[in-house]
């Protein structure tokens, strides 16, 4: 299974990809990931490639081959949509992170167009107001955990508990409660 995680530097994308990788490893799968670390982490566009299963391949997912697009920001979902396979599924946080350049009016941010385009071009598209749920859990920084919780509804090769345990292992004890709540809220938000 190939999962592409997209978002903005500072949203906790590296933690999300490591947690998925660790959960898969625990389940006995082989793992390859590629992360964005460095300059782009400062509010830039970032992406993690996560590849699970027998790996005779490199860490980068070819265009049009990802099974799941997990996007923590709608414009970034759009930017990396080319990686999703035609019948792939997407889980997208709908709350925009408006870049400073857009605030200054130097670059557009057509949110409605972006959401409409995503809805019309992805067969299995799930929208989520993830930052609201993170705040409800106790911290805006738990956005990544809301998304991981919601992701467990998309037929991952391991149970939700394994992913939660793997993610909490990467976090300091004092934030476990908030992050556990965020994960559960995300999971419930998408349950049918």
């Amino acid at each position, binding site marked *: 299974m190939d999962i592409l995680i997209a978002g903005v530097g500072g949203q906790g994308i590296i933690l999300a990809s490591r947690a998925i990788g660790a959960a898969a490893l625990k389940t006995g799968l082989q793992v390859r990931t590629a992360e964005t670390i*460095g*300059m782009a982490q*400062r509010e830039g566009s970032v992406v993690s490639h996560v590849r699970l299963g027998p790996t005779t391949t*490199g860490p980068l997912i*070819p265009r049009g081959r990802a099974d799941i697009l997990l996007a923590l920001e709608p414009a970034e979902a759009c930017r990396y949509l*080319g990686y999703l396979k035609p019948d792939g599924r997407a889980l997208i946080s709908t709350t925009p992170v408006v870049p*400073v350049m857009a605030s200054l009016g130097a670059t557009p941010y057509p949110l409605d167009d972006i959401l409409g385009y995503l809805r019309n071009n992805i067969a299995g598209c799930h929208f989520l107001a993830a930052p609201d749920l993170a705040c409800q859990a106790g911290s*805006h920084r738990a956005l990544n955990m809301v998304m991981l919780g919601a992701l467990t509804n998309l037929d991952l090769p391991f149970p939700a508990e394994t992913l939660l345990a793997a993610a909490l292992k990467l976090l300091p004890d004092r934030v476990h409660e908030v992050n556990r709540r965020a994960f559960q809220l995300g999971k419930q938000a998408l349950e049918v």
Partner: protein
Amino acid sequence: MPELLMGNEAIARGALEAGIRVATAYPGTPASEIMATLMRFGPGAGVYAEWSVNEKVAVEIAAGAAYAGARAMASMKQMGLNVAADAVMSLAYIGVKGGLVLVVADDPGPHSSQTEQDTRLFARFAKLPVLDPSCPREAYEMTKYAFDLSETLGLPVIVRPTTRTCHACQDVALGTIPPRPPVPGFEKDPRWVIMPSLSARQHVWLNRQQRRAGEEFTNSPFNEVRLNSPAGVITSGLSYYYVTEAGEHLGVKLSLLKIGTPYPLPEKLVVNFLKQVERVLIVEEQEPVVEDQVIRLAWRHRLPVEIDGKHNGYLPREGEFNPDIVAAALARFLAIQPAGTPDRPGTPTLPARPPLLCAGCPHRGSFYAFKQAARDRKVILTGDIGCYTLGAAPPLEAMDTCLCMGAGLGLAQGLARVQPDTRLVAFVGDSTFFHAGLPPLVNAVHQQTPIVVVVLDNETTAMTGHQPHPGLATGTRQKKIDISQVARACGVETILTADPLNLEETLAVANQALAAPGPALVILRHPCPQVAKPAGRYQVDETACIGCHTCIKELGCPALRPDGNGVQIAATCTGCGLCSQICPVAAIEEVV
């Protein structure tokens, strides 16, 4: 049970298992996590690990340990090797006793670098063997092997991962970390004293070692041959996986020569492969290092094989490879249709999202104040390498040049010599100041070139992940070097300090420095918000805000965003208070 390790962690682990005694590094993306890992696990295993002041010093320290027969490793990014080049070039002639491994991480793209230079080419220039890992697992194995090879050849060995190995995670099956072996000790011998006569002799030896290394690599498990068809691919490093994946998707079976030792190339292995194929495509990121050697071998051995690659445009020499670029090249080579990608027309225009200074970054105050002070003067602002390079972006636009580590101070002096009517301000970070800022500072004072050096001291090496530097004492046995005392000892007469989040104070200091007759040094000190605890939060009084958006337009802080006719401050606010200091109607207040 294998562990999920980042390539850099796998390299560090390999070094620990190989029995290193000393590890040194200067931070640089994508290599930094190698030393971060060794700092965590090294001391418990009896390894001395340090963040050195720069890469040249790091290599020299590691070489010193290797002179005494201990195993040592220095890690850096590709441009760090330029800084260390003086030591490395001579070290190839002198050689080592204990295994010395230089891990040099390349950054094709580039993602976080000024150049896309290829360390394999540097290795060839320096006449040092280089290993090119294809994945974290192989990086781990190669690092362990590199120490044995270094001792067999008596030469430093370079391990050259790229970003997609350094910052890729993979399940890696680990061995055990053995106890440190005893250090044989330094033996006094003229072989350690480089002189022209010794260099002349050693150059002959060094050239002989090139052939020996090539022979060593003939049976290396890092090189692999598969013979399937008259059409073949030779590939080095990470590209191997792009080739295998593309082959699977295109449904073709190719002859394949995977190269893990791109220099010196194992000649017999390559020549035998070339004899078995009619055509060959060479797939390697960055420079045609393997391709050039293959062309030379095919010519010398009169082999009637067609060689495709970078020289005839099958693959680019610039930028980072990915599975799609390699699949397209392979399809062209085999004259078959490449696999299509889904078409989703009508993509809306997306916002550009370049990296930015974080909310609460003290550099924002430094740049804002100096821009204000420079308004009525002719000023050029030279910059340097670090987070603060992002000050070049709108709306601050507070950086007119950026070249390489420490260059802002030198460039400023050159500009000042030919533009005496212009004031020169050289911004340099605290870590960069120690790394490469000291010689140009001494030069400016000695030559009395009237530049203003501004040290942006956020008490960390922020861009690369918050490593310490000599201006801090993080270990119990370290001594903190005070930047103002250094400047004073160098003879700087005007030395000023301010908190860049206090705009009034910083502006006053900026004006004073710009009015100083000789070289001046300003320290603008405030801890990086990624490390320090937030001071609090600010909010906008909606009844007072007039919607002028001065705060957004002047500061470009990512926590500020327009909200109808007002301004909203996001939860990412750290309470730096700059926006409240410039609000013309005092509508921004601290949340109490």
